[in-house]
């Protein structure tokens, strides 16, 4: 007899659930339209991803039927694992990282490139400047040892003997340059030099892209499986990105202001973000036919393959797939 009570209760629960279900049916369409996808960012929130924030805030993705979560990155948050695992549909990587991951068995394709010109630079102080690769000889360079191949490629491209450069392993921080432990730093043109500028320290920046270092950075990667099965979502995601970054290109100051406003807990400084946004723009929107956001030409792919070979990364043109971006632009 005791079994009667749980039975009744279960039936009651069943009825209740059915009622709730009915109620939900009425609400459904509005919710169901928005497929949930995640974009894995490559670093902490900053203006570096402002186009995505604009897309989020302006509802560009909502128009595509997408509900996008922007997952933060960090020093111990590599982009490739969540994309392989499927926790993120798309990730922001780079041509060198992506080709290395492909060599390790990850089925990635690059579908769009935000930074067509690589942001790596050599920063130095005006009193002892590095203005061209030949100036590196006899200098102490502060960098992560992991980036040695980058320096080696730069040297190979410009006939500089790397043996003449002293590599000092440092944290990613401008302090060793400012306090004279090193003569120059290998860093992004858009972060440590900006930090020095904000602190009132002049610096000289030599952009490696000006000396033949062609590696697509902030490149959007997806898996081959996603291209086959979730193509529409990827195209929608890219379309929102394109719209967001076009707005960014039109007004970088507004993009910086939005970034600071959206992430009050991230400790962002408006002046720093504005300056970063200003310096990021020419890397993302260089002049010529490449000015459309995310677009990459076959020539730039060929140049990338050459530089990647110098980095001991065997990549071929199959790594890149522009068809999804073409669909996004076809609208």
């Amino acid at each position, binding site marked *: 007899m005791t079994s009667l009570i749980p039975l009744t209760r279960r039936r009651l629960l069943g009825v209740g659930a059915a009622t709730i279900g009915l109620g939900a049916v009425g609400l459904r369409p509005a919710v169901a339209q928005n497929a949930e996808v995640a974009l894995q960012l490559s670093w902490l929130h900053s203006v570096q991803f402002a186009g995505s924030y604009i897309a989020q805030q302006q509802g560009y993705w909502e128009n595509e039927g997408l509900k996008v979560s922007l997952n933060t990155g960090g020093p111990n948050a590599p982009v490739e694992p969540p994309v392989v695992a499927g926790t993120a549909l798309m990730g922001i990587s780079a041509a060198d990282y992506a080709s290395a991951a492909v060599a390790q068995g990850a089925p990635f394709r690059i579908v769009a490139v935000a930074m067509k010109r690589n942001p790596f630079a050599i920063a130095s102080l005006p009193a002892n400047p590095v203005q061209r690769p030949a100036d590196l000889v006899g200098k102490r360079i502060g960098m992560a*040892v992991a980036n040695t191949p980058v320096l080696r490629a730069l040297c190979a491209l410009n006939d500089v003997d790397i043996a003449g450069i002293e590599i000092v392993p440092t944290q990613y921080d401008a*302090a060793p340059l400012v306090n004279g432990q090193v003569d120059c730093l290998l860093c992004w043109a858009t972060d440590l030099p900006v930090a020095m500028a904000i602190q009132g320290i002049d610096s000289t920046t030599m952009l490696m892209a000006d000396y033949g270092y062609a590696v697509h950075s902030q490149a959007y990667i997806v898996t081959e499986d996603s291209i086959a099965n979730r193509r529409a979502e990827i195209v929608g995601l890219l379309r929102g990105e394109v719209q967001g970054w076009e707005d960014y290109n039109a007004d970088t100051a507004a993009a910086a202001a939005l970034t600071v406003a959206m992430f009050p807990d991230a400790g962002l400084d408006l002046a720093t973000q504005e300056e970063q946004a200003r310096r990021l723009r020419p890397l993302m929107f260089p002049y010529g036919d490449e000015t459309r956001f995310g677009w990459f030409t076959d020539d730039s792919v060929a140049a990338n393959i050459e530089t990647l070979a110098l980095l001991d990364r065997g990549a071929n043109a199959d790594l890149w797939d522009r068809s999804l971006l073409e669909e996004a632009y076809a609208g």
Partner: protein
Amino acid sequence: MSARTLLAILSALGALALWQALFMLNSDSLVIAGPVDVARWLTANAGLVGRAARTTVLAALWGFVWGNLAAILMAAFVVVLPRTERFMSFAALVIFCLPLVATGPILRVLFGAGAGPQITLAALAVYFTTYLTLVVGLRAVPQAWSDLARLYGRGPLTELFVIRARASVPYLLAGLQIAAPAAVLGAMVGEFTGAERGLGVLTLRAMRSLDVVATWGIASVAAAVSMLAYLAIGALSRLRGQGPPVLILSAGTQAARVPVWERAAMAVGVTIALLLVWQIAMDAFALSRFFAKRPGDVWAYLAEPAARRTLLTALWETLIWTVPGYVAGLMLGAGLAAVVTLLPGARALVLPLSVTLRSVPIITTAPLLVLALGRGATGTISIVAVMIFFPAFVACLHGLTQTPGQVRDVFASYGAGRLRLLVSAQIPAMLPAFFASARMAVPAALLAVTTTEWLATGRGIGTLMALTASTSDYNMLWSAVVVVALVAVTAYLLVEAAERWVLSRYAAEQVR
């Protein structure tokens, strides 16, 4: 009491003065900010720092709770079923050895966005030290008491709850004191795996912006939180009162020798069990083979001579720094504990510094140490020592107070001085705690060296593992993890052998 308060205030002022002096010596270097600037920055950014601190402290608190709970259960289990100790200790040791480069991506994929990885890493940062300290405490029971329980026909469970649990309280409190700053650090470092907010996030931001004042401001908050937790747990142990007088626990006995073949069989069994746990855990969560390598993958990878050579070269570079760093850290911890016991006034000077060094991520303090000591042997060994001395310091400090009352009385009646008491009575009484800390320092030293290699020297296994971030070479990463774990286990066994030899003379109740 008022004299003590005065002394504490004077020492705190001394610590501040030391900070200010360090700042003035290095003011142009952009690696340290002074206390005045820091206070001003904290006032101006109180809201931001408050929100970040709340996030980090909450994660640290949950990690502290879960990690210590796990440690208590494990320790109780091991004491009731001594045969499981081998497996439990080595599993605990190996998991503690896992570097953030390997665990970060896995935790993020498992938990998604949110505080999951931060809490897990905080828990992982505390469970091992608490477990080791507590096992020692649960064994610190007079032989006569256990005999009494057995005479009454009671089993190991009664013995655990009635006798051992009470005897272990001072050790548990020591373990919790060690754990408090470690939990804060674990939560901060956990934020490096991709978090929206928190003290770790702010630290990264401040360092990249060359904002030294902010960097040190955040570090002070982390240190202050840890210090409060440390002092609160300390107050808890005083609340307990003096408790029963500490007794002489056991007369020395010759420990039974386990035959060699049995030890070998046990080692093989434990290894197979750990490999199974590894394989099954990764399969159970269906983790992608791309970044979550299985034992088979590592085996196949290490079959290539080139891979083996790279790994062994790096291992050698790592080991030549680890051993001196380990010894230096251990001696620094035990030495400071002795100094504080001899000169109680030094406590307020030593303690803030110790807790700070333990609770602030090494990326904040390393630039200062590297600037002062260079990237060579001195600098590297110092950084390692600084990263590992804290558990030894706290464990020894508590161990020194475990001197049996009868022994103290004898010394007092002969009018022996403090130094005499320290050398002849307190240090022998401290030995179980010292060896527990020597065992917990093994994986800590390896983690410290690999971190230092990544931050300052650019050599060794640490650099090899850091390379994974750009190369996705997870085979190399997991092979390095295996090698580091093997080294840790070997070193642990060596320390344990020394411990058995010493403790069979000084604290036979610890030797099974």
